[in-house]
């Protein structure tokens, strides 16, 4: 049984200007010990997807309007969409933990680090005082913060960006969650620190066996971290598969276009120009009919303008793969 199984998730925002379908039919799964990267441009709906998993979509104006999120619970699984708020609260921080993009604003500037960490233990494990402090100290050391003991009494502004992110990771892992959701954790950091943080996440994953849903727009990060990749565009998943398959044999025109637009050393020479994708991603409030990518797609044909393609499932590179496109690769010029 998968640790997390998302099926046809739909999260819409009901605003004055109309309904924004931020997530419109997304399905994927994450297993224990594997890293699934959710890739897409800004506005593709990847962050909203992650917030939906934890029931943290700002409501109003947002709401999960359809689909299911099955999360493993012992021998069975429960649907988080239907879970009560009390149940979600017990899951957040304990079974599913999340780390966010900007560590500067994601930590409470007025509270000491130690206290913010210990809070998680207090809420979920009823652990306080010295026992809690000890656990926090261990965790800080495990995430590689030097002089951890004194850091417990510091405030966030006294730490560097990289260290703050480590603190966030520590905070997320304190209760040994089954699933870790990382929403662009390295985007706000320097490149050198990025690599360290990614290594840290990978180490912890290996040691603790958590499943990781890693959200990013950076294909380099995907190449390093992912076991499997899910590509999102305009609120939908357009392709999903193993990382190797995605990079070497992309099945969807969007994925193809993305890969053509970044420099790569693995495909050797051959290409001397990067190709940007023409046009702009559609505004989520104003999606084109049919396949949302068709206005920018070089292979678009009539059906593309009318209906969203079915997901074709097959095996690629020995792993399950799927892509949603009307035009099979053989028919592309």
């Amino acid at each position: 049984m998968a640790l997390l199984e998302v099926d046809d998730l739909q999260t819409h925002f009901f605003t004055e200007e109309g309904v924004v379908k931020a997530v419109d039919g997304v399905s994927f799964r994450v297993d224990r010990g594997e890293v699934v990267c959710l890739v897409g441009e800004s506005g593709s709906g990847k962050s909203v997807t992650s917030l939906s998993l934890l029931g943290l979509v700002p409501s109003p104006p947002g709401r999960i309007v359809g689909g299911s999120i099955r999360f493993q619970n012992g021998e069975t699984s429960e649907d988080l969409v239907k879970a009560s708020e009390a149940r979600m609260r017990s899951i957040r921080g304990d079974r599913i933990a999340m780390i966010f993009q900007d560590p500067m604003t994601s930590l409470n500037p007025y509270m000491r680090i130690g206290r913010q960490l210990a809070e998680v233990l207090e809420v979920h494990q009823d652990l306080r005082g010295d026992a809690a402090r000890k656990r926090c100290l261990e965790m800080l050391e495990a995430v590689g913060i030097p002089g951890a003991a004194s850091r417990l009494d510091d405030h966030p502004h006294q730490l560097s960006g990289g260290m703050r992110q480590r603190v966030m990771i520590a905070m997320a892992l304190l209760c040994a969650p089954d699933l870790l959701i990382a929403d662009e954790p390295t985007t706000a950091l320097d490149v050198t620190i990025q690599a360290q943080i990614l290594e840290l996440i990978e180490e912890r994953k290996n040691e603790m066996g958590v499943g990781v849903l890693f959200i990013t727009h950076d294909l380099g990060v995907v190449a390093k971290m992912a076991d499997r990749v899910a590509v999102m565009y305009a609120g939908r998943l357009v392709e999903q598969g193993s990382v190797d398959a995605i990079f070497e044999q992309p099945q969807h025109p969007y994925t193809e276009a993305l890969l053509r637009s970044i420099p790569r050393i693995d495909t050797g020479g051959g290409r001397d120009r990067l190709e940007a994708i023409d046009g702009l991603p559609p505004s989520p409030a104003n999606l084109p009919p049919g396949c949302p990518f068709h206005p920018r797609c070089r292979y678009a044909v009539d059906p593309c303008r009318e209906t969203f393609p079915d997901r074709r499932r097959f095996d690629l590179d020995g792993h399950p793969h799927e892509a949603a496109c009307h035009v099979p690769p053989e028919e592309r010029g």
Partner: protein
Amino acid sequence: MGSYALRRLLGLIPTLLLVVTLVFFLVRLAPGGPFDAERAAPPEVIAALEAKYNLDAPLGEQYFRFLGDLLKGDLGYSFKYPGRTVNEIIALSLPVSMTLGFWAMIVALTFGIPLGMIGAIRQNTWKDTTAMAVAMLGISIPRFVLAPLLVLWLSLGLYLFPVARWETWRHMVLPVICAALPTMAYVARLTRGGMLEVIHADYIRTARAKGLAERQVVIRHALRGGLLPVVSFLGPGFSALLVGSLVIEQIFSIPGMGRYFVEAAQNRDYTIVMGVTLVYGTLLMVLNAVVDMAYAWLDPRVKLS
């Protein structure tokens, strides 16, 4: 923190000196004032003034005498009431005004903060609109309108509270309410604004992602940042409250410093006016220094320079 406090208080001294000097020269220059050749005052007062101030001495010497007197706490004689010193009057009236101001601030904070929090947490619901409408009323109705209306209603109509004077706790209720209302309104608005900003902050989202109940999120995380605007308001807030109490003391015949000040102003009793100004000024400056220190203590990001 301690050394910051000390430095802050010491820093007040040059400002105080400036104010004192300013006042000194103002009084000297006031036409018809104590030092004007054609001053209009009873002869005993003039005699007392001359004895005290030695007006033939050069200005510099007079100034230092003045400072010396101040340090001794001697503010001189009333200009209009022979034989009474400014000190006497202030000693009698200051505690009254302080009590009024203190309780008014307590009431303003006690009711204003929760009102503002309701507005923020239940944003855009009827509770929010109502809370903010009440706050708006508080800001828009002048105290000197509110006071007579409350008196008409609660004192003369319902016999709940006495109309004037300052003797028992019952006498305190109406004046304190009237003094507190506009301040409470400001506090409510500031609290709501501050909380709204904080509630949409990323770190609140993190707190929720940790599994905290909404109530814990608000109290443990949002409140501290959200109340900071209220803390920085306290300084000028007290100032405004003080000014407002001038009217309250008039209407309710409360023997506070404000009432004496207004009477003195209307009577052109220069020395009392001057003395009260100095006391108010000093009081408020110290108060503000304390508020600043409180703010620095609450917000760890403020560097204590």
